[in-house]
């Protein structure tokens, strides 16, 4: 094996030991910045994953059939679909595992003294749990039994009426649910509150009222009608846009062929605004993190600058031995790269351990922020998300950036006239 590369690498690593204190400080700067950055990315990735899962599991599903001119940001629910128009055979596409109708409707809830606007969700529980995750959601009390008339309310609704969830669960609490039919007629039902739910999905938690589908249809005088049919697909990861869009197209074609006036949306389209907000968050927190990176890069540049200056005479000696000025420059770049690599690995280990821990245990947001409601579709605990690709990219990035940071000091020293370099102290 040729010895020159091995030699250069060995020398670069050994040079960490020339001035241990300085190396330690530089490594700490690089390591901390990598650790912080990885932690930050881990939380953002966790936030993204958790909130996307919540959106999908509680409301969006993977694909949604809605009436034409549906606006996901300001849905009005004034046109509805006939559920019988969409038999299982029509919805049976490759990859689709389940479909469930929901009837969402603007509603009012009253306890006889006060009334508040809410959003009603008429659910066919049996089919709903195939698509959504209501059955895995913390609930105090219970859902209705088949044929039973009753409602489950979001935690925020319970608070609004100062209802203690435990006494709700014990039974005997009634609320009046008011809805308005397409013809403009109001209907009102006195219903027992069977449970209080916390989904982590703000629209349901703050103002959601869940009711049996037939009950909601009766209230709105809309038998057989629903506002949407949501489809779940098997193993669609959040990055799997192609399969999602293929299924969307196929379904849309089927609906058109059946002569149905309905549109198919993917969860991505439904969540577009939310994802955009999330991206802005990501960018701004990444910019904040760049500050750390900048400090680390300056640390490396400074470290190499001092090293190159201190070793001017040695550089002269190396030139006398016949080392080319480019080889000298590379030597300093390697040293910068080693600072980045070693610092990156230290930081990666620290940050990686922290992220893995926070992936298991999570960060309790309610404990941190108290009862302030977070406008994020996540539950109380935010779990970080460990991404090996991010970690490796960051170590590689730290290595590369550090080599770049070493460039100018390295070039300056490498370009010195050998005789002048030798005369240095």
């Amino acid at each position, binding site marked *: *094996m040729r*010895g020159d590369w091995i030699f250069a690498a060995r020398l670069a690593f050994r040079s960490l030991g020339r001035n241990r204190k300085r190396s330690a400080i530089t490594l700490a700067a690089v390591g901390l910045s990598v650790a912080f950055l990885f932690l930050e990315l881990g939380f953002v990735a966790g936030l993204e994953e958790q909130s996307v899962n919540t959106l999908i599991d509680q409301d969006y599903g993977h694909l949604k059939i809605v009436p034409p001119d549906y606006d996901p940001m300001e849905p009005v629910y004034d046109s509805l679909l006939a559920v019988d128009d969409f038999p299982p055979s029509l919805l049976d596409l490759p990859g689709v595992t389940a479909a469930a109708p929901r009837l969402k409707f603007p509603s009012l809830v009253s306890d006889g003294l006060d009334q508040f606007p809410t959003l009603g969700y008429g659910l066919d529980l049996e089919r709903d749990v195939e698509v959504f995750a209501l059955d895995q959601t913390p609930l105090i009390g219970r859902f209705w039994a088949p044929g039973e008339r009753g409602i489950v309310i979001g935690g925020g609704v319970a608070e609004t009426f100062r209802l203690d969830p435990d006494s709700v669960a014990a039974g005997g609490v009634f609320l009046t649910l008011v809805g308005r039919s397409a013809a403009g007629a109001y209907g009102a039902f006195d219903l027992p509150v069977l449970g209080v739910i916390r989904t982590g999905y703000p629209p349901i938690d703050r103002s959601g009222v869940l009711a049996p589908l037939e009950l909601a249809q009766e209230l709105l005088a809309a038998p057989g009608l629903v506002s949407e049919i949501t489809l779940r697909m098997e193993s669609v990861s959040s990055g799997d846009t192609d399969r999602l869009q293929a299924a969307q197209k196929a379904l849309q074609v089927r609906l058109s062929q059946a002569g149905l006036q309905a549109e198919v949306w993917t969860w991505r389209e439904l969540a577009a605004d939310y994802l955009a907000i999330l991206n802005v968050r990501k960018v701004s927190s990444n910019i904040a993190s760049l500050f750390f990176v900048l400090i680390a890069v300056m640390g490396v540049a400074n470290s190499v600058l001092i090293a190159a200056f201190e070793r001017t005479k040695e550089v002269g000696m190396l*030139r006398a*031995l016949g080392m080319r*000025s480019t080889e000298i420059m590379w030597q300093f770049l390697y040293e910068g790269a080693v600072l980045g690599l070693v610092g990156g690995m230290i930081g990666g280990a620290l940050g990686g351990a922290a992220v893995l821990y926070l992936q298991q245990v999570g960060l309790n947001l309610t404990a941190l922020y108290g009862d302030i409601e977070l406008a994020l579709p996540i539950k109380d605990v935010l779990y970080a998300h460990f991404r090996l690709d991010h970690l490796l990219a960051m170590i590689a990035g730290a290595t590369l950036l550090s080599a770049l940071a070493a460039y100018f000091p390295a070039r300056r020293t490498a370009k010195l006239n050998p005789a002048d370099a030798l005369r240095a102290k």
Partner: protein
Amino acid sequence: MPLVELRDVYKTFQNGVAPVPAVQGVSLALERGEFAALAGPSGSGKTTVLNLIGGLDRPTEGRLFFDGRDISELPETERTQLRRRRIGFIFQTFSLIPVLSSVENVELSLALLGFTTTDMRRMSLEILEHVGLKGLENRRPAQLSGGQQQRVAIARALVKDPEIVLADEPTANLDHDTGAEILDLMADLNRTQGTTFLFSTHDPKVMERARRLILLDDGRVVSDRTVPSRGEGT
């Protein structure tokens, strides 16, 4: 053909306030196998002459030949190549890399020539033994005495079997006895390997050891004579 020849070489430094004429019309020729001293007081231009011969610097005027080839105008890359293969340097301050062991410091010379790691190691261990450092191969410079460090430097210069070794005051940082040992070693290598040596000194005791004494003063050669054999030469 002489190995090294200087023809009316001048070197004037311009980087100060006033130009400094360090070398003023030096002409001399060195044959292969010589063991020559470049003597003179501090500031007389010894280092400058050695640097010019070694291609570390360019003459302001005059011609400089290495093995018959004019190197005074040679581009930097080719002068680097020349130093890499054919010239060995030894410095007053030893100039070893502190984070490398003795053997690694010697290997450095060979690494630049593209030897394999195994060849590098074998050759370096051999030469270290030759300069009397067997058993100290893995010590770092800080764990060696001054004389031992200079032996490593000699091994580093010699391991690539250069045609000439240029030594700038190699004994100036050593006590008298150690300096004498270093000179013995250099003379021995000159005799056994035929390597040409040109070393500078301002120490009369060291000058005595040379077989040719070139005396510099104020950038000029004021005397150049062969010293009668005194036992260690052939």
